[in-house]
């Protein structure tokens, strides 16, 4: 496959350290996904709060 990996299986095995390598890369992936989801949720909340305030004002 490359000079360093003979196959994909070899790649995923990471020289017997698969657990440590993929726990690291996996954690970063999860953290980024969680942050992006939280960012979107916060934006939605902020927009909803503005809408709420506008409706309140329209009633008065």
């Amino acid at each position, binding site marked *: 496959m490359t000079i360093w990996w003979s196959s994909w299986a070899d790649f995923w095995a990471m020289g017997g350290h698969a657990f440590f*390598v993929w726990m690291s890369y996996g954690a970063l992936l999860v953290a980024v996904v969680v942050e992006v989801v939280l960012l979107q949720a916060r*934006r939605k*909340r902020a927009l909803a709060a503005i809408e709420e305030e506008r409706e309140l004002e329209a009633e008065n």
Partner: protein
Amino acid sequence: MNWFYFSSPSTFYTLAGRLAPWFFILAAALAAWGLYLGLLVAPTDAQQGAVYRVIFIHVPTAWMSMFLYFVMACYCGLTLVFNTRLSAMMARAIAPTGAMFTFIALWTGAFWGRPTWGTYWVWDARLTSELVLLFLYSGYIALSNAFEDPRRGDRAAALLALIGVVNLPIIYFSVQWWNTLHQGSSVSFKGTSMHVTMLTGMLVMSAAAWMYAIGATLVRVRSVILERERRAQWVRDAGAA
């Protein structure tokens, strides 16, 4: 040119919205390139074997954890000295991303330490000061939200952030000042002891982390602006666009 034009939250809101997607695209492209270099092209380390490949996320996230704190502290300084609104909002927007990078630096360090040092954690100066950085970020976030009046929260948290700056040189020089289990720098301003593709992979991943951090900060600061300026006329006029 009016340098204060973009320091108004309303104009910066629009600018941040236009810029953010480009930073995410850049981050994704750089991350793809960096991961390709780090996982497939860079040689396997002669001593550590494949597990050293954690370096391609450990070092960039650790660098970003300190750099983002420094930038956040600069915005906090502006907040305290000039009492500018946008600077406090920017500091608030940076903190969660900085905390995320600090956590990942600690986490990846633990999973790298276990197979190479034989332990996930040790109370060594480098690790402990990086943990203190995580507490500073969380302290900043907690304190900034602890007041009814957000501008008081801005100022109290800014003071904490500025005091916490002393921790940055402690993290950076800890491996020289104390006898740490953590190794010294592989890369310094004087040069490097690394193979060139290893170094390139690490620098490309750092650039990706940097672009991502800017993108995430810009998106978050837009929410902070909306939360804080909810009653301002421009927010209403914009129809929350």
